[in-house]
């Protein structure tokens, strides 16, 4: 295996949890809801995903448990912000704190235990192709699933009527409501979808990446996913590019150090965030021309007049 191939494989693996969680958050935000609890939902997905796989021996059950944990967490968030019209920022932060604490409690019994990781695909002939084989046909199913997920989201948002309604709700909830669309119901589904994706993204870590559970193992990936949505200016295509860019920066800085290039690792670690700030500046300076899909009603509380 050549070094370039190895680097690409590592980037794919490192980017996948970010892409999964960010894809869900993108849909949530396009519906006008800002859920800052991604980190909490991810770590709960990691804990429950590991627990599921540990008890049943099946990584598929583990993945489902991770998804359900994310959905459960986001249901709490939906109840708070959509049902009780609580401030979304505060509720999201509380969700993260809750998730980090609770996952530690759930995971306490699993310290030092290990499971078998999700197997990597192997297709006859195709996987053995030189160079592209391992990259295109030899990773675990979640890597390709995450890309399929984003394509599905793109199709839903831009090619279906339901997607159009969801975007309308995110851009102007008052008008959507006046037209008779059930704003809160649509937002609830968007939040639950976001939770499911975050839960799966979290579960990816103990199921496929490092097959054990340790409290706090998401280590801030939920926050990177949030930054990624902004970086992508709320567009699915840019989200994929951004996720792999963030992943590539992480992996390349490690390789650069190992190879002895004199690049300060701290600077490289900060690069994704610098890039996000830069994108925010570009978006605000060139409003409209570069194309940003920032939902106009993002983070605003909506209470329908009955």
């Amino acid at each position, binding site marked *: 295996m050549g070094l370039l191939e190895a680097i690409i494989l590592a980037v794919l693996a490192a980017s996948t*949890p970010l892409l999964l969680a960010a894809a869900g958050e993108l849909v949530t935000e396009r519906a006008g809801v800002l859920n800052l609890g991604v980190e909490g939902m991810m770590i709960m997905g990691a804990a429950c995903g590991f627990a599921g796989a540990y008890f049943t021996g099946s990584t598929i059950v583990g993945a489902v448990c991770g998804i359900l944990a994310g959905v459960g967490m986001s249901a709490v968030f939906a109840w708070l912000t959509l049902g009780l019209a*609580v401030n979304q920022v505060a509720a999201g932060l509380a969700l993260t704190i809750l998730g*980090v604490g609770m996952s530690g409690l759930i995971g*306490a019994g699993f310290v030092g235990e290990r499971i078998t990781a999700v197997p990597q695909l192997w297709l006859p002939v195709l996987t053995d192709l030189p160079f592209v084989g391992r990259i295109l046909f030899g990773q675990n199913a979640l890597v390709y699933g995450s890309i399929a997920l984003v394509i599905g989201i793109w199709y839903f948002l831009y090619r279906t009527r339901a997607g159009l309604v969801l975007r309308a709700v995110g851009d102007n909830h008052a008008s959507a409501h006046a037209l008779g669309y059930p704003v809160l119901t649509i937002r609830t589904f968007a939040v639950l979808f976001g939770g499911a994706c975050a839960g799966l993204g979290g579960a990816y870590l103990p199921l496929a990446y490092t*097959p054990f559970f*340790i409290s706090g193992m998401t280590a801030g990936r939920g926050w990177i996913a949030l930054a990624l949505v902004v970086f992508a200016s709320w567009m699915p295509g840019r989200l994929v590019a951004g996720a792999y860019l963030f992943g590539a920066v992480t992996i390349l800085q*490690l390789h650069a150090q190992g*190879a002895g290039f004199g690049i300060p690792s701290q600077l490289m670690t900060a690069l994704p965030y610098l890039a996000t700030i830069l994108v925010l500046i570009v978006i605000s300076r060139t409003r409209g021309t570069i194309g940003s899909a920032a939902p106009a009603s993002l983070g605003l509380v909506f209470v329908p007049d009955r």
Partner: protein
Amino acid sequence: MRKILIAATTAALTFAAGSLSAGAAEKLKIGLVYLGPVGDFGWTYQHEVGRREMVKVLGDKIETTYLENVNEGPDSERAIEQLARTGHKLIFTTSFGYMDPTLKVAKKFPKTFFEHSTGFKRAENVGTYSGRFYEGRYIQGQIAAKMSKKGVIGYIGSFPIPEVISGINATMIGAQSINPDIKVKIIWVNTWFDPGKEADAAKALVDQGVDIIMQHTDSPAAMQIAESRGIYAFGQDSDMIKFGPKAQLTAIVNNWAPYYVQQAKLAMDGKWKSGDTWQGLKDKMVMMAPYTNMPDDVKKLATETEAAITSGKLHVFKCPVVGQDGKPIECKGGQNLDDGQILSMNYYVKGVDDKVPGK
């Protein structure tokens, strides 16, 4: 809104701060403050092992309470003070960043004994303790030099602080005693704990042709990568053999338990005194996990080196210690570098083909 926030915060705090307690008045109450979760399978986990040992040995003569996930800085001052206020007479604060908060609280509670791990400031009622982890690194360096076919050690560092740098140097001095041309590839991950990133660093090292991995970070992620890639690795803080049954050569195990039991006994007998404890292999504060996955001659060499360090015959930083520029480092300890020099080490020794970040 406020109510909900308070409720959520309380819930989170309840989950974050596990505490154990059992009745009776005359028991010695012992408190411990942890940086991470007890489930980190590394640094904090080993302190928790120490607490459990105290409970096991001293049984119902003591009562212990621990607070986990306590951030360094002002948060920790509150946590330590809370323990002192609730009648804990012996308090272990187990991270470097608790140093000043510990001293501040200690001033307010002169009759309470404090034990601070890895710090260097002491008071009448504040003692410090740490392990000479570099002794284990020297042995690992020798094993690595024997076992590496390519003559390259991959090293995953957390932060370029003296403890980590002295570990790298000890590794290299040990390795050079076997193979003078040994090389080291160092990757800093700028975190103590991020399993994903530690795994990424391990992968990067393997992909660049390293066949032995050493880590100074807290999770067993690198060990697992070594196992799946069919190379060797060394465990950190805890015995990580479970994560690398075919990969782990040995591990540095932080063994606080005997010290904790000893200090608790002293406190019970009213004989506790503030002191500075920096113990290594000799006092078993640093221990080596069983030597596995290596041929008998390497095992023999490792065992002999361990015995030599334990008996004091061999000092890891025996003069002359040669710097990267080829000049010997000033020898303040007579035969070897003195403790102060080891504790403040911020340079690499000769043979490390890299530079300390930020220098």
